[in-house]
C-alpha cells in the first residue's frame, strides 16, 4: 500500500478504528453464529469464540499500528535525527540556511513585485472583460494611448452595443489644498467618466462614488472621491471627511465619498489618491479636438469579441481623422499625412491594468527575477555539495544502518527529510527577507516627481511560490547526496576502517561546474548593468547639473491667470544675482529634465516643411551662463529682445544649425515658427552648444531657446553652492522683490537628471548586490569541496610528499581537481551569458555583450574568488605531515 493511503489513514483515524472494530467483530459474530447453529448456548458460544480469538484489544492495537505508525514514526524519527545532525554541524547549517534564505527571499521578493505589477488582475468585477484602446500609426513600435475628448465621445456613443467605454485623464502628482490645511500637498489625482466606477464595479466604502449625473456639464460638478488608502493615511478614516473641500488644478471640489479598499486605481505602480469627474477638467480641453489627453478604457459587452468592437471603433476613428486632416499644415508631405490617416485603433485586453510603471520596469523586474533564480540555483548547487561532503563523512554511519537492515528508500527518505528541514528553515527566513526587501525595491523605483507604490499584499500566491520553491530546492540539492548515500554498500564502507582511497570528487564536478556557470551569468548581467549605469552617469549632458537649485515661482495669487509682466521676472533675476551666496540665476518656462517639453513645426526659407518638430524652451538671458551651456557663436539673448516691436530673437543649438543650415553659419538667419495659420518670424542671434532636454539617452535634440514670455509661473535656475539650503534664502528674498512672489516647489537639477536613472540605478544596485552574494556562495562552495578533497586524499598526499613531492606540486594536485571543472563552468557560463544578454541589452546604454570587458570582468572576479577559496585548502595540503597521514589508517 502506498504512503498516500497511510497518510489518509492518519487523517481518517476515526474511520480506521471503526473499520478494525467492525472487521474483528464480524469474525466473532460469525464464529458465534456457527457455534449456536451447532446447538451451543449463546452465552457459552460468545465466551468460547472470544477465547479462541485471543485478546481483541491487543490485536486491534497491533493492527492499527501496522496501518498507521511505521511511516509516521520513521518520519518523526528522521526529523529528530535530522535536527540533531544539523545542530552538530553548526557552520555548515548556518552557511546553507543563510545562502538559501537569501536566494529564496530574493526570488520571493522579485515574484511578489512581478505579481503586483504585472500578473495580478485588477481588483474589480470580472477583470477579464476589461479593455483599453490604443492607436498605432504604421511603423510605430508601441500603441499611443492618448485621445482627445471629442473623439472619445464619438467612439463611446458609436460602440455602446459592443463595449462600454469610459475616459480617464493621465495621473501625475498635483498640488491639492484641503480646507483643513494651510499648505498644499501632493496627491495623485485622476479625472474619470461618470460611469467609470459603475463599469469597473467599484463600490463605495463611505458616501457615494462619482455617477453619470456628475459628468454632464463642464465645470458644474465640483465633486471628488478619495481612495481608501489616502483616506486612511490623510484622514485616519474619519467619516467627517465627507463634505470637506479640496482645491486641485484651481478648482474647488467637495469630497462625496471614499472608494472601497481593494481598488487602488487602474494603473499598477501608482496608487490613485483622488478621483474627480472629467467635466471638472479644463472646459477648453474637453471641447478641443487637438489636445490628446484622455485614455479610453472599457468593458466588453457579453458575447462580443474584441475584433467586432475594433471594426466599429475603426470606422469612427478613421472618419474622425479624415475630418481632422483638413486642419493639418497645407504643405505637409503626403507620407506624413498618409501615416496620420492610416493610424489604426486597437482594443487591448487589460485585465491587469495598464501603466507606465509597468512599461518602464517590467523587463527590469523579469531580469532581476531571473538573476535571483540563478542565485537560488547557485545556492542549491552550493548546499548540495555541502551535503555530499557531509554524506561522505557519514559513510560509515550509513553503511552501519544498511547492514542492520535499513532499506534504500528509507535512507533516501531520511536524507530528503534533512534537506526539507533545511529548506523549510530557509523558506521561513526567506519569506521574512522578501517582506523586508520588496518594499525597499519599490521605493527605489520612486523619483522626486513620481511615487511608485505597489499593493504588495502577501497572499496565497506568494505562499504557493515559497512552497514550490522550497520543494524544488529540497529535491534539487537533496536528491544527489541522498542517492549517493543510499548507493553505499556496507561491505565497501566497513571493510577498511577508514574512508576509501578512490577520489570521490566525481560527484562534485557537475555541481561545481553548474555553480560556476550560473554565477558567471549573474556576474555577466550585473557587469553590463553596472557598466551601463556608469556610462549613463558620466554622459555629457551639455550642461552642468551640479549646484543648481530649480525653484518653481508663482507670481500672484494661485488660480489667477494674470501673467507677471516680463519686467517682474527681470527684476527678480537681477535682484537675486546680487544676493550673496548665489552665483547666477536664470528664469525659464520649465526646467531641463523636469518632464515637459514643447515641440513646434518650423519653416526654414528654401526648405520644404517636414514632419520633424524641433524643441522649444522659453528662457531668460543668462540661461546659458547659469546652466553652463557653451555659447558657440553670436550673442546671448537680452532682456530688450523682448520688446514687442523687434522681431523675436532666438538662440538655436548646434544640432538645430546642423539640421536646418548645414554648411553655413546660422547666426543672422531667419526662419518661422508655425503657430497654426500664423508664421512667427525668428531671428537667430546666437548658437548654443548641444544640451539634452528631457531625454538622457538620446542625442541632444535640435532646440530653439526663445526669450521668456510673461507667465504667471516660471522656474528659476539658481546656481549656488548652497544647493537645497538656498530655499530659506529665497523665502526671504522673493517678497523683497515683489510681495506676490512665492516659491512653490524646489528641487535640484541633479535630482531631475537622476530621476531618469531610476531603473538603471535599481538594476545596477540589485544586480551588484546579487553578484556579491553569488561570489561569496561560489567561494564558500569551492572552499568546502576542496577542503573535503584534501581530507580525502590525505594519505595520497602524504605518500607523495614522503616520496619528495614539492609543496607547489601538491598545490597543483589539489587545484587540478577543480581547475578544469571550473574552466568548463566558466565556458558554459560565458555561452549562457552571451545567449541571455540579448534580453538585457535593450534596457542598457551603449553596452554590448561582445565587448571584451563584459566577458573579462566576471571572469576575473570569479577566478579571483576561486583562487582565494582554494588558497586555504591548498596550504593545508602542503602542511600534511607524511607520517601522520600514513599512520592514520
Amino acid at each position, binding site marked *: *500500500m*502506498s*504512503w498516500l493511503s*497511510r497518510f489518509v489513514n492518519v487523517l481518517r483515524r476515526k474511520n480506521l478504528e471503526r*473499520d478494525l472494530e*467492525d*472487521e*474483528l467483530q*464480524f*469474525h466473532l*459474530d*460469525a*464464529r458465534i453464529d456457527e457455534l449456536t447453529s451447532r446447538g451451543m448456548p449463546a452465552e457459552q458460544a460468545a465466551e468460547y469464540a472470544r477465547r*479462541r*480469538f*485471543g*485478546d*481483541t484489544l491487543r*490485536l486491534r492495537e*497491533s*493492527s492499527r499500528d*501496522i*496501518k498507521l505508525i511505521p511511516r509516521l514514526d520513521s518520519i518523526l524519527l528522521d526529523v529528530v535525527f535530522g535536527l540533531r545532525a544539523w545542530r552538530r554541524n553548526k557552520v555548515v547549517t548556518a552557511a546553507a540556511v543563510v545562502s538559501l534564505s537569501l536566494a529564496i527571499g530574493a526570488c520571493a521578493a522579485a515574484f511578489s513585485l512581478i505579481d503586483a505589477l504585472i500578473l495580478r488582475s485588477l481588483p474589480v468585477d470580472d477583470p477579464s472583460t476589461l479593455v483599453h484602446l490604443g492607436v498605432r500609426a504604421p511603423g510605430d513600435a508601441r500603441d499611443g494611448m492618448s485621445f482627445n475628448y471629442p473623439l472619445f465621445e464619438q467612439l463611446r456613443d458609436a460602440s455602446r452595443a459592443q463595449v462600454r467605454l469610459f475616459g480617464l485623464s493621465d495621473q501625475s502628482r498635483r498640488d491639492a489644498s484641503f480646507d483643513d490645511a494651510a499648505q498644499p500637498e501632493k496627491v495623485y489625482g485622476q479625472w474619470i467618466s461618470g460611469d467609470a466606477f459603475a463599469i469597473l464595479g467599484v463600490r463605495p466604502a463611505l458616501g457615494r462614488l462619482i455617477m453619470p449625473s456628475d459628468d454632464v456639464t463642464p465645470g458644474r460638478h465640483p465633486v471628488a472621491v478619495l481612495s481608501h488608502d489616502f483616506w486612511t493615511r490623510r484622514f485616519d478614516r474619519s467619516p467627517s471627511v465627507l463634505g470637506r473641500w479640496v482645491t486641485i488644478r484651481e478648482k474647488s471640489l467637495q469630497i462625496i465619498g471614499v472608494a472601497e479598499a481593494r481598488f487602488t486605481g487602474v494603473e499598477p505602480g501608482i496608487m490613485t489618491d483622488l478621483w474627480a469627474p472629467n467635466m471638472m477638467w479644463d472646459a477648453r480641453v474637453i471641447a478641443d479636438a487637438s489636445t490628446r489627453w484622455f485614455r479610453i478604457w472599457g468593458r466588453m459587452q457579453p458575447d462580443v469579441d474584441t475584433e467586432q468592437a475594433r471594426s466599429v471603433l475603426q470606422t469612427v476613428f478613421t472618419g474622425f481623422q479624415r475630418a481632422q486632416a483638413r486642419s493639418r499644415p497645407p504643405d505637409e508631405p503626403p507620407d506624413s499625412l498618409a501615416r496620420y490617416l492610416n493610424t489604426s485603433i486597437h482594443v487591448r485586453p487589460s485585465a491587469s491594468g495598464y501603466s507606465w510603471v509597468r512599461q518602464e520596469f517590467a523587463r527590469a523586474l523579469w531580469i532581476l527575477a531571473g538573476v535571483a533564480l540563478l542565485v537560488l540555483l547557485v545556492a542549491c548547487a552550493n548546499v548540495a555539495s555541502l551535503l555530499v561532503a557531509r554524506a561522505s563523512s557519514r559513510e560509515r554511519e550509513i553503511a552501519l544502518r544498511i547492514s542492520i537492515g535499513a*532499506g534504500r*528508500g*528509507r535512507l533516501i527518505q531520511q536524507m530528503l527529510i534533512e534537506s526539507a528541514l533545511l529548506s523549510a528553515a530557509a523558506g521561513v527566513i526567506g519569506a521574512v527577507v522578501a517582506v523586508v526587501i520588496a518594499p525597499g525595491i519599490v521605493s527605489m523605483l520612486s523619483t522626486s516627481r513620481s511615487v511608485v507604490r505597489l499593493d504588495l499584499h502577501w497572499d496565497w500566491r506568494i505562499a504557493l511560490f515559497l512552497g514550490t520553491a522550497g520543494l524544488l530546492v529540497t529535491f534539487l540539492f537533496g536528491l544527489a547526496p541522498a542517492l549517493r548515500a543510499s548507493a553505499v554498500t556496507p561491505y565497501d564502507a566497513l571493510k577498511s576502517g577508514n574512508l576509501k582511497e578512490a577520489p570521490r570528487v566525481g560527484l562534485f564536478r557537475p555541481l561545481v561546474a553548474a555553480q560556476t556557470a550560473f554565477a558567471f551569468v549573474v556576474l555577466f548581467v550585473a557587469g553590463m548593468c553596472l557598466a551601463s549605469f556608469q556610462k549613463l552617469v558620466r554622459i555629457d549632458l551639455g550642461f552642468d547639473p551640479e549646484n543648481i537649485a530649480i525653484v518653481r515661482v508663482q507670481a500672484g495669487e494661485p488660480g489667477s491667470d494674470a501673467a507677471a509682466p516680463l519686467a517682474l521676472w527681470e527684476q527678480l533675476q537681477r535682484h537675486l544675482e546680487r544676493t550673496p551666496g548665489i552665483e547666477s540665476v536664470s528664469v525659464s518656462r520649465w526646467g531641463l529634465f523636469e518632464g515637459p517639453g514643447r515641440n513646434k513645426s518650423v519653416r526654414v526659407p528654401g526648405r520644404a516643411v517636414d514632419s520633424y518638430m524641433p524643441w522649444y524652451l522659453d528662457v531668460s538671458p543668462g540661461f546659458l551662463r547659469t546652466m553652463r551651456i557653451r555659447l558657440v557663436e553670436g550673442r546671448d539673448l537680452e532682456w530688450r529682445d523682448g520688446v514687442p516691436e523687434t522681431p523675436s530673437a532666438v538662440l538655436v543649438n548646434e544640432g538645430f544649425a546642423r539640421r536646418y543650415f548645414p554648411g553655413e553659419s546660422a547666426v543672422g538667419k531667419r526662419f518661422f515658427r508655425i503657430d497654426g495659420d500664423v508664421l512667427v518670424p525668428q531671428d537667430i542671434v546666437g548658437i548654443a552648444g548641444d544640451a539634452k532636454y528631457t531625454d538622457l539617452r538620446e542625442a541632444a535634440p535640435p532646440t530653439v531657446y526663445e526669450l521668456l514670455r510673461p507667465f504667471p509661473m516660471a522656474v528659476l535656475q539658481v546656481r549656488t553652492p548652497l544647493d537645497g539650503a538656498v530655499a530659506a534664502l529665497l523665502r526671504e528674498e522673493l517678497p523683497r522683490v515683489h510681495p506676490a512672489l512665492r516659491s512653490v516647489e524646489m528641487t535640484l537639477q541633479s535630482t531631475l537628471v537622476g530621476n531618469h536613472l531610476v531603473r538603471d540605478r535599481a538594476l545596477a544596485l540589485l544586480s551588484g548586490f546579487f553578484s556579491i552574494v553569488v561570489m561569496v556562495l561560489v567561494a564558500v562552495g569551492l572552499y568546502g569541496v576542496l577542503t573535503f578533497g584534501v581530507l580525502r586524499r590525505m594519505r595520497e598526499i602524504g605518500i607523495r610528499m614522503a616520496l619528495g613531492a614539492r609543496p607547489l606540486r601538491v598545490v597543483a594536485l589539489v587545484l587540478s581537481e577543480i581547475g578544469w571543472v571550473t574552466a568548463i563552468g566558466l565556458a558554459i557560463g560565458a555561452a549562457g551569458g552571451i545567449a541571455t544578454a540579448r534580453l538585457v541589452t535593450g534596457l542598457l546604454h551603449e553596452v554590448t555583450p561582445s565587448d571584451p570587458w563584459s566577458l573579462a570582468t566576471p571572469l576575473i572576479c570569479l577566478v579571483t574568488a576561486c583562487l582565494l577559496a582554494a588558497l586555504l585548502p591548498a596550504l593545508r595540503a602542503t602542511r600534511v605531515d607524511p607520517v601522520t597521514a600514513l599512520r592514520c589508517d
Partner: protein
Amino acid sequence: MARQESFQGSLPLLVLKILLKRGPLHGYGITLRIEEISDDVLRVEEGSLYPALHRMEEAGWIKAKWLTTGNKRRARAYEITAEGRRRLEAEEKRWMAVHAAVMRALKHA
C-alpha cells in the same frame, strides 16, 4: 514503496495460497479454510490472523474491500494481488528448498 519484509512462520504463505485458490475471502473464511486443510495442526489464536492480514495488505500482497453479507453485516474481504502471486511463488520455492535441505540433512545426518 512497500518494503520487503519476510514474515516469520508459514501463515502468510498459507493465506496467500488459500486466497489464490479460493478467490476473495473474509478473515473468518480464511480461518475456516486453515482449520479445514491443516487438521488443526497449525491452529493458532484466531485473532493473530488479522495483524498478519493487515501487514500483508500494507505490503501490497493482498487487497481488501468491504462487502455487505446476507444478514447486513459489514465484512472485509481479501483478495490476492499480482505482487502477492509473485511473492507466493518465491516463498513457495524458498520453502521447498529449505524443506528439501532439511530433509536431506535429516537423512544424511
